[in-house]
């Protein structure tokens, strides 16, 4: 059979319709989360070695005090609400909230990273094991919006 030539106008219309359909296409949110996690991984040293100044230090101290107070309160509540089995105490992890709190049932992704143990000091944590130069694994909990919400450290 001789192939019939599709009408040029019909082709133009179909292309226009496909263009409109494609314009509604969205990149899945997990792609952004992965891209930003890659950025964070690549720049983790920069974060640790950023030049200091007075206001930044003051803001960091204020934030640390606020976080410490919040964590202390949270810790007290958790301590009251939960009882840790003696066998599990050596296997605990520290969860450091770095953004808005994670809501119940909120979809999150976890990105595992290897960072120098000294990085934890910059985050106000003391590495449980290893020397400051040693690399340890931390889990970054990323929300659906791609923003880091918490960092889980230690075993």
């Amino acid at each position, binding site marked *: *059979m001789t*192939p*019939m*030539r*599709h*009408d*040029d106008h*019909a*082709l133009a219309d*179909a*292309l226009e*319709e*496909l*263009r409109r*359909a*494609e*314009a*509604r*296409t*969205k*990149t*899945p949110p997990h*792609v*952004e989360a*992965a*891209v*930003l996690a*890659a*950025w*964070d991984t*690549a*720049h983790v040293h*920069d974060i640790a070695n950023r030049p200091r100044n007075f206001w930044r230090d003051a803001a960091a101290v204020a934030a640390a005090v606020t976080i410490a107070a919040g964590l202390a309160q949270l810790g007290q509540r958790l301590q009251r609400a939960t009882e840790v089995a003696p066998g599990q105490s050596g296997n605990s992890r520290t969860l450091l909230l770095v953004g808005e709190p994670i809501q119940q049932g909120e979809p999150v992704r976890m990105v595992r990273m290897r960072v120098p143990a000294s990085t934890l000091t910059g985050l106000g944590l003391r590495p449980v094991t290893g020397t400051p130069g040693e690399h340890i694994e931390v889990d970054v909990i990323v929300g659906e919006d*791609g923003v880091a919400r918490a960092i889980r450290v230690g075993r």
Partner: protein
Amino acid sequence: MRDATRTTDGDLTDSDLMRRTAAGDRDAFTALYQRHHAMVYRFARLMTGSNSAAEDIVQEVFLIVMRDAARYDPARAALSSYLYGVARHHTRRRLARDRQFVAFDGDCCDTTQRVTEDDVNATLERRQTLLRLRRAILSLPRRYREVIVLCDLQDVSYNDAAVAVGCAVGTIRSRLHRARHLLSQKMGCAMASEEDHQRQSVRCAV
């Protein structure tokens, strides 16, 4: 297409954002991603016919941006042309790698239009046409497919397409002309084949 020197109210230009990204500004990188991820994703999706391949290509493109932001020269090309160029390179690599696989995802052509009772036939026919068109585009040789995707489906100007593809504007024009001709033939063949199939089905039913 967004120009590197153009800005809307209060927005930084693409070249400003690239400069800041090169200096390690995460917010600038995020803004660049927000501004350009959709066009890269659509381009890769239309070129490969695969959502998962398109997702990988978006990640690869923005990892290149993260790594090589300092090397971007706004005088040579608008950022969108640069990104299309990088996406095109990764798409070619991906297609070459996946040559032995079927390069068409069923989920890629999942149109989320709601069908009402009144226009069921019209909607189904339209979806069928779009499916045929997607398949016809994917069956085009790559150099023709990319000009159709860029110029007809992504609204990229001939000049910017020429920068992205790395050829003369005249080449873009001639490839586009040839691509539309091939597409028209393929669509005609597909329709004729379907009509033939329907006629045979009717004969069999009778």
